[in-house]
């Protein structure tokens, strides 16, 4: 078996994407859906023009950049709060049995509640403001992240803990120097799930309850839908996909490569 080079991996992916795009273009040109075809399957060129137009002209004179910036700002705020709280509560679970007992129940219940289902209540309490979106992102991140952290901490081999105690560790030192690195695989899985849920939750919330004070990318898609600008709508989906890819390949994978993969704890 030949060794798999990174270049070959990229080539495989590129070929796959090229095939999908070619199939799209063929369907678009064949007018499979008759009169509706141009709306359902706009040609790639039309989508590409719409992509540029989104950023240059935007909607009602506001570029997609502005919407994107608003979304990302709320997303990052929410994720930072969610991740910090998840670490705090999961850490407390390791210290106190009582807290762990109650928090497990809270996670089990809260993780099942779709953020969008909570939106009406949240809006009644907080009013329509960007804080609602942040709340929703926190809700999307904190529970899956907590699940993973608690599972990760529980799976830390007793041997590492005993070796750590023997070398003089206890309390916070043990948490930071043994539990965190030993549970790194779980922490990264939690980040991946948390990030995906947050991104999806954010866009759903923006589509349903667009907040005029901070219009985001979900609201933009919704406006394109209302105006039947389908090419622009597809182009915005492409933007969402690109952001997802950047986070996966530009942030999460490198973190993985420089931690668990380097330590021989997981394959890439």
């Amino acid at each position, binding site marked *: 078996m030949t060794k798999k080079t990174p270049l070959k991996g990229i080539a495989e992916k590129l070929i796959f994407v090229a095939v999908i795009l070619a199939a799209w273009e063929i369907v678009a040109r064949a007018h499979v859906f008759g009169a509706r075809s141009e709306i359902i399957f706009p040609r790639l060129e039309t989508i590409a023009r719409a992509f540029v137009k989104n950023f240059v002209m935007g909607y009602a004179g506001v570029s997609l950049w502005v919407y994107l910036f608003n979304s990302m700002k709320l997303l990052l705020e929410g994720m930072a709060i969610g991740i910090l709280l998840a670490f705090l509560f999961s850490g407390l679970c390791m210290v106190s049995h009582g807290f762990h007992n109650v928090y497990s129940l809270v996670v089990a219940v809260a993780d099942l509640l779709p953020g969008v289902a909570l939106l009406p209540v949240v809006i009644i309490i907080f009013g329509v403001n960007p804080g609602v979106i942040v709340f929703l992102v926190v809700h999307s991140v904190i529970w899956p992240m907590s699940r993973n952290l608690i599972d990760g901490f529980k799976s830390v081999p007793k041997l590492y803990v005993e070796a750590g105690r023997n*070398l003089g560790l206890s309390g916070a030192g043990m948490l930071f120097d043994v539990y965190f690195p*030993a549970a790194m695989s779980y922490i990264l899985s939690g980040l991946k799930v948390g990030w995906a849920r947050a991104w999806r939750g954010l866009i759903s919330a923006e589509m349903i309850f667009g907040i005029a004070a901070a219009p985001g990318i979900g609201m933009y898609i919704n406006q394109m839908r209302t105006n039947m600008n389908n090419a622009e709508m597809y182009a915005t989906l492409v933007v969402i996909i690109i952001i997802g890819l950047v986070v996966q390949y530009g942030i999460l994978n490198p973190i993985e490569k420089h931690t668990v993969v380097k*330590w021989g704890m997981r394959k890439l």
Partner: protein
Amino acid sequence: MSALLKIEGLCKVYDDDSREHAVIDDLNLEVAQGEFLCILGPSGCGKTTLLRCIAGFEHCKGKILVDGREITGPGTDRIMVFQDFNQLFPWLTVEKNIQFALKRQGIRDRARLEAITSDVLKKVKMDGHERDYPYQLSGGMKQRVAIARALALKPAIILMDEPFAALDAITRNTLQQEVLAISQQENCTFIFITHNIQEGIVLGTRLMLMQPGGKIAIDTKNPIARPVSPSSPGYGPLWDRLYAALYDTQHANNT
């Protein structure tokens, strides 16, 4: 001279399925500075429990004193080398694994940290592997690094729980010779658990055989001059005596 390690009336009871089971019942032991105590015994006789009590990992009744002070928990004066190869932290390189505890002891000077690391790695013949991660090492190499990590802390006692039991015979013999050499150079006391009579006779300056319940059946100085080989005078009779006692306790245990 008073003993370095003094154990008085040690009792350890495990609670399983509402049935209390005394693994060690009223054990008394003194170990002098510089001794290499090898403990033999059948499975379940309490050897490992004894070692874990000395390390401070277990709650037990009785007194354990090191250098006259009663121990209350784990400490860097008693370093354990476990049987499991995975005792090194996989997220730290070989040198960082060794320096980890040194830093916690307040040694911050980089040159000094590196000097200690390279010194202990030379002792276990692992120099040149400073930047390797544990997953890149073989089982025997990991055990060498674990021993180096223990040596770096200059503990009063090194506790070894069958550290070579999972190694192949050749690696095992090599490591025995190296531990023997280290024990003769270092001003350190060793307590070494093994199932292997040969290993006990080769390494120990004192041999102890435990019976179920933590009873000490044999406790004798090793009369054979070092280096020990199967052809050393007295090896055969000593081996026979230990084997017979080990077999007896095992036999008694099974019937």
